């Protein structure tokens, strides 16, 4: 996380003066020639950097200038094994500090980077952790943005006393157009006749994902959190869809799962088809979870990797570094534009698949009419 600003600053520098990088190079050469150990240290841990970004953290890191970290401390909320709740600023556990027995684990693969504590026997354990991490804060910020945007648009009508002759323009018009296009092109054809009941949920999901995807692409605070590239976030979204599908599914939907129109031997004595269908209940939200998570995570990974190209090639000499910097910047710009498209597409796909799954759970009994 500490390299975030460095990365984006490099991007900016690259855009402004891609060829100015070689002037920095001699000093780099000096440091790298000093000793092999220091050379190792100076090398950029790209994988660690990427995982740091797409993972979660207890504080919101903005920039590192020299040895000084600029970061926003967030609230840590943990419950110890004794059942005691603790709330403290993440600044108190930063940089290896320990607060009331809680500290961030830096050793071992298990619970790496998570808040841990030692119990009375001195064993490491993971407390119940409801900390507002960077991603949780990102979720809240994005939620706020979504609420402000949509209520702002709704308020635009309220301020005009719901005058039917008022035609929104500009931003309000654009949001309204987006809502209309999603409702008319995705929700209505997919869900079917009682689509009005589901459209608030599907629109909320769409706007939450879309706004989160876009804000995730903004490199500076309060954007840049890898919200929709986190599996917990996409899991909640997918489970919401699963809830909407299965709780409001009609008789026909359950009949097709438990007693589908297949030859009887496929249902009795071994309930082959029902098992497959029941598996479908789980596989659908699973697919939704993984699709969104993997797409956004991959996008962030590629963006950081491309930006790291500048720093990886520092040791390859001035010309190579200069060429790669330009290359990196051009590719980053291309990827960012692509990711803006992906941000919309993934939000659209999630909404559309949710709508289709809901539509399948609400379909009328038409198979019997055909026979």
């Amino acid at each position, binding site marked *: 996380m500490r390299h975030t600003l460095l990365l984006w600053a490099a991007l900016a520098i690259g855009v402004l003066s891609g060829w100015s990088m070689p002037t920095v190079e001699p000093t780099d050469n000096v440091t790298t020639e000093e000793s092999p150990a220091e050379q190792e240290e100076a090398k950029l841990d790209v994988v660690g950097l990427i995982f740091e970004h797409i993972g979660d953290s207890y504080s919101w890191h903005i920039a590192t200038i020299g040895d000084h970290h600029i970061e926003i401390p967030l609230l840590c909320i943990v419950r110890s094994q004794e059942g005691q709740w603790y709330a403290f600023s993440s600044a108190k556990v930063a940089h290896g500090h320990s607060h009331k027995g809680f500290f961030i684990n830096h050793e071992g693969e298990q619970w790496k980077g998570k808040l841990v504590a030692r119990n009375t026997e001195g064993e490491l354990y993971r407390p119940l952790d409801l900390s507002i991490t960077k991603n949780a804060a990102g979720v809240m910020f994005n939620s706020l943005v979504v609420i402000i945007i949509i209520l702002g648009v*709704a308020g635009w009508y309220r301020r005009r006393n719901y005058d039917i002759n008022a035609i929104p323009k500009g931003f309000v018009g654009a949001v309204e157009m987006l809502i209309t296009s999603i409702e008319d092109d995705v929700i209505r054809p997919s869900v079917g006749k009682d689509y009005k009941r589901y459209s608030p949920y599907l629109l909320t999901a769409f706007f939450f994902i879309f706004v989160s995807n876009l804000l995730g692409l903004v490199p500076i605070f309060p954007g840049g959190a890898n919200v929709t590239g986190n599996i917990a976030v996409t899991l909640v979204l997918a489970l919401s869809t699963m809830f909407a599908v299965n709780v409001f599914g009609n008789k026909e939907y359950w009949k097709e799962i438990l007693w589908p129109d297949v030859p009887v031997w496929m249902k009795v004595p071994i309930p082959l088809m029902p098992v497959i269908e029941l598996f479908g209940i789980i596989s659908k939200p699973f697919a939704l979870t993984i699709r969104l998570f993997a797409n956004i995570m991959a996008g962030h990974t590629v963006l950081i990797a491309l930006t790291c190209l500048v720093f990886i090639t520092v040791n390859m000499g001035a010309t190579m570094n200069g060429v790669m910097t330009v290359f990196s910047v051009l590719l980053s710009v291309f990827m960012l534009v692509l990711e803006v498209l992906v941000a919309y597409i993934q939000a659209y796909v999630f909404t559309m698949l949710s709508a289709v799954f809901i539509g399948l759970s609400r379909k009328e009994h038409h198979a019997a009419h055909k026979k």
Partner: protein
Amino acid sequence: MSLLTPELGLLFWMLLSFLIVFGVLAKFGFPVITGMVDKRRDRIEEGLLAAKEATERLQGVQQEAEKMLAEAQKKQSEIVADAMADSRRIIEGARQKAEAEATARVEAALSQIEIEKQKALGELRREVAMLSLDVAEKVLREKMKDSTAQAGYIERLIAEAEDNSPKTNA
């Protein structure tokens, strides 16, 4: 891999945030916007429908007017034809009446003339008779001035009467 294991804390905050966002937007956000959009769409559809109806009505009115015009023309020509027929009939009637009257009058005049003629004829006959009687009287008087002539005449008349009587008896 910590990337693939959802963190409980984040799950909790995400669920909470998402439920709040959903609750707020489902109540105050999206229904207002989609409602307004639907209302506007209904309004536009209504307007289009009204325009279509108006056009149709206008067409209907035009057709009606044309029909009325055609009817009026038909009625007009009917009236004209009727009037012509009437006038022809009246003229015919008048002509016939006049003819009949003329005929009657001519006949009356003819019969009057006949009567007058008969009367005149009768009068004329009587006159002629009287005249001839007078003439005969005068002639007879002239002739019968002498008694011999009278006697001879009587003689002859008797002879004639005697000639005539057996014949009539036979």
